[in-house]
């Protein structure tokens, strides 16, 4: 009963069925009342007229009298002879015909039955209809039916059950369509908002919904407009970050040449070395900013199958080389061949940043384990750096956030944010926890059998 569609559908249907039932019972009561009033008055009048016609002119008189009846009462009075023939050759209504046949079958064998004596004279089977007895002893049955509307006649002939079923089906169909017209666009809106929240700003409401002239159509137009504006703002921001980074690098390039020129003039100076180090650091931060904005703006390099163990081995080599002066030991344990459908550069940058973080903050022995678990690849990076406080754990992946224990390190505090973002565009999850030894970062990625493209098709259907 949670579904809006079902609720609207049932509400509509209930209302329609109730309306039908009310209207039908009202009609039935009116018809009943009309029938009883007719039977109490006009029937006796008609009987007297008919019996007079029969007495005066026999069967022919009866026929003439029937024919002379006003048109409105055409089907009200039937007269049937002993052979069951209606005098004007009209078809009797179904239920009447059956009652008549039954009463005739009861009456007819009685005259032939030898055991007649056993029936007391005072007992005669009731006949539901009036009988006219002609001068020659011929018996006619006179049937009076209350006047019927066309619908009531149709109903009594074809049976009310069929009509009721049709009414139910039609009202169900109408209710279903009505409910669908309301609930379908809503579920479309839901899918689109979910897609936008997942970062797909290209999402738009289908033009079919947008073209509707009602409130839902207006909503779809506003929705699309909003998404468009959001996308533009997002693009502008990403472009700005990218442009700023590029622009910052030009003076940096000049600074480096100037530094070398200065070195040549004055020889090696501790201050110049310091300038060199800071320039490198600035360059590193700009690089991280650029990487981060690129991941946000356009993560879609060509996707391909990436062998996780191979990728990690390469990254570990590189990071170990970078920290060659720091005696960092990275150990990789991989229990099986796991491939991921993804973007190699983004994945590389994710693990590079995780390992760099572990190397510069943890140091010592770093354990990297890769495991397969139910369609997911789980990569754990465990360092021996003593971990961070629980309050800081949650903020670790925020851009520009630095844990208090991080000390003086290179970069802008974007490393883990880049990793988290790169994992997120692979529909993956990244999580940090403290262990006995230090910080453990767990990455959970859908492995090849459960590719990101499959989850996309799930959204669109």
């Amino acid at each position, binding site marked *: 009963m949670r579904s809006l569609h079902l609720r609207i559908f049932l509400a509509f249907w209930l209302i329609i069925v109730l309306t039908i039932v009310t209207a039908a019972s009202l009609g039935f009561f009116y018809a009943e009342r009309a029938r009883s009033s007719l039977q109490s008055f006009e029937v006796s009048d008609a009987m007297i007229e008919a019996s007079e016609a029969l007495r005066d002119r026999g069967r022919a008189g009866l026929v003439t009298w029937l024919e002379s009846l006003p048109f409105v009462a055409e089907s009200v009075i039937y007269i049937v002879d002993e052979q069951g023939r209606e005098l004007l050759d009209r078809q009797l209504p179904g239920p009447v015909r059956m009652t008549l046949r039954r009463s005739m079958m009861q009456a007819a064998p009685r005259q032939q039955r030898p055991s007649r004596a056993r029936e007391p004279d005072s007992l005669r089977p009731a006949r539901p209809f009036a009988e006219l007895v002609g001068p020659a002893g011929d018996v006619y049955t006179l049937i009076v039916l209350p006047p019927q509307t066309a619908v009531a006649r149709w109903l009594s002939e074809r049976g009310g059950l069929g009509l009721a079923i049709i009414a139910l089906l039609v009202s169900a169909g109408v209710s279903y369509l009505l409910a669908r017209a309301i609930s379908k666009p809503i579920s479309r809106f839901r899918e689109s908002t979910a897609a936008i929240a997942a970062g797909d700003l290209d999402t738009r409401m289908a033009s079919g919904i947008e073209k509707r002239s009602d409130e839902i159509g207006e909503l779809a137009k506003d929705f699309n407009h909003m998404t468009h504006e959001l996308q533009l703002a997002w693009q502008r921001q990403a472009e700005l970050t990218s442009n700023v980074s590029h622009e910052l690098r030009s003076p940096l390039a000049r600074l480096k*040449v100037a530094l070398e*020129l200065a070195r040549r003039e004055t020889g090696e100076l501790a201050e110049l070395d310091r300038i060199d180090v800071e320039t490198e650091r600035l*360059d590193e931060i700009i*690089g991280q900013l650029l990487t981060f904005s690129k991941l946000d703006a356009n993560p879609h390099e060509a996707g391909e199958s990436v062998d996780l163990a191979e990728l990690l081995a390469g990254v570990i080599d590189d990071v170990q080389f970078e920290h060659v002066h720091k005696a960092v030991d990275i150990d990789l344990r991989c229990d099986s061949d796991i491939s991921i459908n993804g973007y190699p550069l983004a994945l590389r940058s994710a693990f590079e940043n995780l390992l760099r973080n572990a190397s510069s903050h943890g140091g010592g022995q770093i354990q990297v384990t890769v495991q397969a678990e139910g369609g997911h690849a789980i990569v754990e990076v465990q360092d021996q750096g003593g971990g961070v406080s629980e309050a800081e754990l949650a903020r670790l992946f925020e851009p520009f956030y630095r844990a208090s224990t991080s000390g003086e390190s290179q970069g802008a505090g974007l490393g883990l944010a880049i990793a988290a973002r790169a994992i997120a565009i692979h529909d993956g999850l990244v999580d940090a926890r403290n262990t006995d030894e230090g910080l453990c970062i767990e990455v959970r990625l859908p492995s090849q059998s459960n590719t990101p493209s499959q989850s996309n098709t799930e959204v669109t259907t």
Partner: protein
Amino acid sequence: MKNTAVTTARVLIIDDDRELGEMLKEYLQPEQFVVDACLSGEDGIDTLRGGNHDIVILDIMLPGMNGLEVLKQIRDMSDIPTIMLTAKGDDVDRIVGLELGADDYLAKPFNPRELLARLKATLRRAPTSTAVASRLAVGAIELDIKAQKVVAGSASIRLTGTEFELLRCLAEAPGEIISKDDLSNRALGRRHMPYDRSIDTHMSNVRRKLGDAGVSNPSIQSRRCVGYCLLVEE
């Protein structure tokens, strides 16, 4: 005794950063380089057509005519050694540049000492500087070491200096796997760096050019994560 052939080399810098050009001029002059600077791609190509430069430093991030387009036009004109300056982290530009025939690349901002080392290493591989007169025949091709030409039958295959040097490294020891470190040291004059796919890109260029010339013997084989080897069928 210094090799007199490399005492002065003419460098053309194509970069829209005028000040950087001036500073590089100042930095490179004492190192026996004569430096010309152009601020746009069109300008650079014109200058290159008229002058007799030994090496080009090309900024890929040029306004107006794209640096990669400039590189393509330079390669249509000549095999002059070219070092490109790319944005750090922009792997696509770098790979496309190497595929288009750049000899080496440097991420901007760069350390000028690194630039100097690359300039010297690249120039050392340039045709006129090595004077060893020898020919090396492998399979269906013949390497003319002095002229830095590869001949397949009657046709000659055009390779850049770096590409030739790589092929030569492999051809000197056919059938042997040469590591990427060795290849980088010998052909690029620098250590093989992490994330660096220059060797692979250059190698695929050589492979493509040999294939275009219809040469199937020798063939360049790659050993993943190890290196390359030249396979010759007798």
